C-alpha cells in the first residue's frame, strides 16, 4: 500500500478563510505543494495538546497535515501517492 507514515515538521503558509484556518502551501521533501483541496478536518486531544488534522490533496497525492494548537507547529503525518 503506497502510504507512508511519518511525523516531520514542515514549513507552511496558511490562510484564514470563512471556514477558519486552512493550509495553503507547504514544503516537503524539497518540494512545494499547493493544497488543492481540504477534504476533511478533525480534532484530537493528545495529552494537554489539541491537534487539528487536515486531510488534503495536492497533485494527485494525499497528505495528512497536523497542527498542534499548543506549540503552533505543523507536521506531516501521512503521505499517500499512487
Amino acid at each position, binding site marked *: *500500500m503506497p502510504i507512508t507514515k511519518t511525523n516531520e515538521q514542515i514549513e507552511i503558509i496558511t490562510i484564514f478563510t470563512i471556514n*477558519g484556518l486552512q493550509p495553503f502551501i507547504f514544503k516537503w521533501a524539497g518540494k512545494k505543494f499547493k493544497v488543492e483541496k481540504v*477534504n*476533511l478536518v478533525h*480534532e484530537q486531544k493528545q495529552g494537554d495538546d*489539541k491537534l*487539528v488534522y487536515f*486531510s488534503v490533496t495536492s497533485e494527485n497525492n*494525499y497528505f495528512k497535515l497536523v497542527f498542534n494548537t499548543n506549540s503552533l507547529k505543523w507536521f506531516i503525518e501521512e503521505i499517500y501517492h499512487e
Partner: protein
Amino acid sequence: MQKFILHLDMNSYFASVEQQANPLYRHKPLGVCAYLSPRGCIIASSKEAKKIGIKTGTNVAEAKKLYPNIILLENEPAKYRSTTTKIFSILSDYTDRLEPYSIDEAFLDLTGHIKTYEQGEKLILEIKQRITKEVGDWLTCSAGLSWTRFLAKFASDICRADSHLVLDSKISMLEKFNQVEMTEAWGIGKNIERRLNQLEIYNLIELKNYPVANLMQAFGKPGYFLWANANGIEIEGVRTQQEIIPKSIGHSYCVPKQEPDLQYIKAILMKLCEKTGRRLRQNNLEAKKIYTGYSLKYGGGFFKSKKISEPLYTTEDIFNNAWKIISQHPPQQKIKMIAISVSSLGPISDQLNMFTNNVHKNISQALDKINQKFGEHTVYSGKMWGLEMQAKDRIGFRKTVDINLKEDEIKYL
C-alpha cells in the same frame, strides 16, 4: 398534534469518512478494521467492498482472499467522533430534541418545527446538502420520516443508500410492511422471528393484526413493544442525551496474549475497569450490578453477574468486585476475550456510608480530571503498567454516544 420523527443513518460510515479524507481511496473496496492482524475484524466496509461480499464481521485474512488488493485501514476513533460532532451539530440546528442513537445514527423530533410531510422532505434534502457541503462531499445518508421512532428507523433502514423514505400514513406503512421480510424491521432478528413463527406470525402485517394479549403472554412486556411498533403506536419518543440513562456501561477486549496468565488477565481487567469507571463517572452515575468474565479460544467461557450492596463508583471498587469473581474461576485454557460491565445504573447518591467516607470518590474524580486534561494513561494504577497499547480506544456500537453538541464549529485557536 401530528408527530414528525426523522431518523438519519450515515452510509458505510467509517469507510466513507476514510474515503472522504483520502479521495484516492474512493471507488475502491476498502475495509476499516479494529486490528490489522489476520484475525482482526472489518468493522465497516465501503459500498465497493460490500458488492464483492466483504462485509462487517469479515476478518482480514478472509477479506484478502476475496480481494487481494483490498485497502485495509486501522480505525481512527477520533476522526469518526470529530466528524459525527459536526454532523450532529448540523442536526441540532433543526430541533432541540435530538437523540444521538449511535456514532452514525440520530433521531430528530421535528414536531412543531414542520407542519407537513412535504416540509419534512424538503428539510431532509436540506440536511443532506449541508452535510455534503459543510462536512464532506463523499458522505451520504439514508433518512426515514414518519410519526413514530420505530417507523422512522424502519423507513431509513429499508430505503437505499443516499435516499429517503417517508411513511406518512397507515396505508404507506402497510404497503412497505408487505414488501419486506420481518427481519428487516428494527428489533426483529432471527431469534425473535423464530419465536414469532411459532405463533404463526410470518410477516409484519400478521404481527400488526395479532392479539396483543397473546403476544404479551408469549414475550412478556417486549410483546407489547412488538405489537405497538407494528401498529404505529409510539412507545418512548425521542429522548435527548440528557434524558437517557444507559442500561449498562462496559468494555471487552480480544486479548493478543491468549495463555491463561492470571497476572496478565488481572492487568487487562484493571484497564477495562478503569475505562468503565471513567464512563460511569463521566455520566455522574453509580452501579449496583457487575457482570464479568472471559471467553475461551476454543469455545465456551465463564461469565457471572452479581448484585452489589454498596454502589460501584471508583475504578478500585469495580476492579475488586470483578477480580473476586474471576479469580474464583480462573481459566485453565487459552482465552479469547475478557469483558466487564456494570448495570443497575442510577444517579450518584451523596449519602455517606457509615463505614467509609468520600475520599476514594474524590480521588477518582481528581484522577479523571488529570487524565482528561493531560491524556489517557497519565496517571494510572500500577497494575496497568506496560499496557498502553492494549485495550486501546475503540468506537463502541452502543446506543448512546458522548457527543458534545455544543461545539458547532471547530475551535482550534
